[in-house]
């Protein structure tokens, strides 16, 4: 019983890093998703192609290898240093998930009914007003449930940052296990519980958004 307390206290130390990486990655990947998603539906060919290449590269390679690239390969090759390890982790995770999420932004925008565009033209809205007031608000409703799913995935992905030496939840768990080998099952059981508890609000958010998004969208 005592060891459960000990392990929990130790894991709590790592929660801070996990939460920081999670929160900042969510913000930045969301921004990237919108910028990339909008670029993908833009009529500017160069922007469109460039973003397409970015999305495919980051979707097509694994996050753990991207983390290693940003943290070990880039500094050696090009002398690019991304600052502290937290930033390295946040940037790799954000670029990776931003690429995935840009696809939901793109497909949601495209699935808003064409009649909405026609009505906007008939009311003489400008292109920008149409995007800002008609298309994007409806696209956001459509993308929210899937967006929630990605937030849960980002949380789980943060566990990889222990591999580039960040002292997150999993890192402390591994440290403890390496000195108390026989308690490995307890350690990993507790780590699972911790991640699950962290995911609960995100799961609740996703459920709520599923209900919300059913209202107020005109789909083809």
């Amino acid at each position, binding site marked *: 019983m005592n060891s459960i307390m000990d392990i929990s206290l130790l894991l709590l130390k790592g929660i801070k890093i996990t939460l920081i990486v999670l929160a900042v990655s969510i913000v930045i990947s969301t921004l990237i998703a919108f910028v990339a998603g909008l670029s993908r539906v833009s009529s500017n060919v160069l922007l469109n192609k460039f973003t397409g290449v970015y999305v495919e590269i980051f979707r097509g390679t694994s996050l753990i290898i991207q983390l290693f690239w940003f943290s070990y390969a880039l500094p050696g090759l090009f002398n690019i240093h991304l600052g502290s390890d937290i930033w390295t982790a946040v940037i790799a995770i954000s670029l990776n998930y931003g690429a995935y999420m840009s696809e939901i932004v793109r497909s949601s925008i495209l699935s808003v*009914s064409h*009649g*909405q565009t*026609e*009505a906007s*033209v*008939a*009311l*003489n*809205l*400008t*292109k920008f*007003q149409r995007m800002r*007031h*008609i298309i994007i*608000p*409806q696209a956001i*409703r459509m993308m929210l449930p899937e967006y929630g799913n990605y937030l849960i995935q980002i949380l789980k992905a943060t566990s990889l940052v222990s591999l580039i030496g960040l002292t997150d939840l999993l890192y402390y768990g591994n440290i403890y296990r390496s000195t108390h080998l026989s308690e490995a099952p307890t350690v990993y059981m507790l780590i699972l519980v911790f991640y699950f508890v962290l995911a609960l609000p995100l799961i609740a958010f996703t459920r709520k958004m599923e209900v919300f998004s059913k*209202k*107020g*969208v*005109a789909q083809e």
Partner: protein
Amino acid sequence: MGKPIVNYSKIHKSFGDVDVLKGINLDIKPGEKVALIGPSGSGKTTIIRMLMTLEQPTSGTILVNGENLWQMEKKGQLVPSDDKHLHAIRGDIGMVFQHFNLFPHMTIVENCMLAPALAKKNDKKEVKIQAVEMLEKVGLGDKINLYPAQLSGGQKQRVAMARALMMKPKVMLFDEVTSALDPELVGEVLEVIRDLAKEGEMAMILVTHEMDFALDIADRILFLNEGVIEEEGPPSELLVNPKSERLQDFLARFNKR
């Protein structure tokens, strides 16, 4: 009646290999009510969609208030219009669609307020007062805070009309506005259009299959067939004494139903 508010001259339109319109010449006078009838695929809807800038003519010109809609002058040459030019000219045109196209994420009063508020026609309070008045006019004064999904088809179409009217267009286009409605809801929508027609100032172009209604409110009926205006005239003449064989066939088929 003075010079036309809308003028089509030698308008052709093809979609791929299909020639939908083959030389349309048409003047609409201010305040005139024109009904477009004809078999499906005859190009009726395309005619009004080009005026709303939803479809670009393959050749020919459309003038709105004497201004060229689809071409503009640039360095002394006529070039295809850009968004800015279209935006500047189409403000006088409004349109009501077959499938309403209301904005589902906004209440119906917000639907009516959005465009005039963005166009800064008036301050927001004033726009809201006008929107409520307009919704009262179409008989929905008690529903202003509902969302489109909470309304019947007929009510949705009346909101769509109120929303289009908020921009005070000089020409209003109606694209088969009763075709998507249950039969028992058609009447309430036609009633609103009839009232608008009586007010008079606004020109109206109606693509419709409601012959009795066209007979009732139109100053002029155009019969379109295979991309040309086959016959036109005042409703009493055109519907009662059709000259061309095609119109006779069309009306006969209609009356059988």
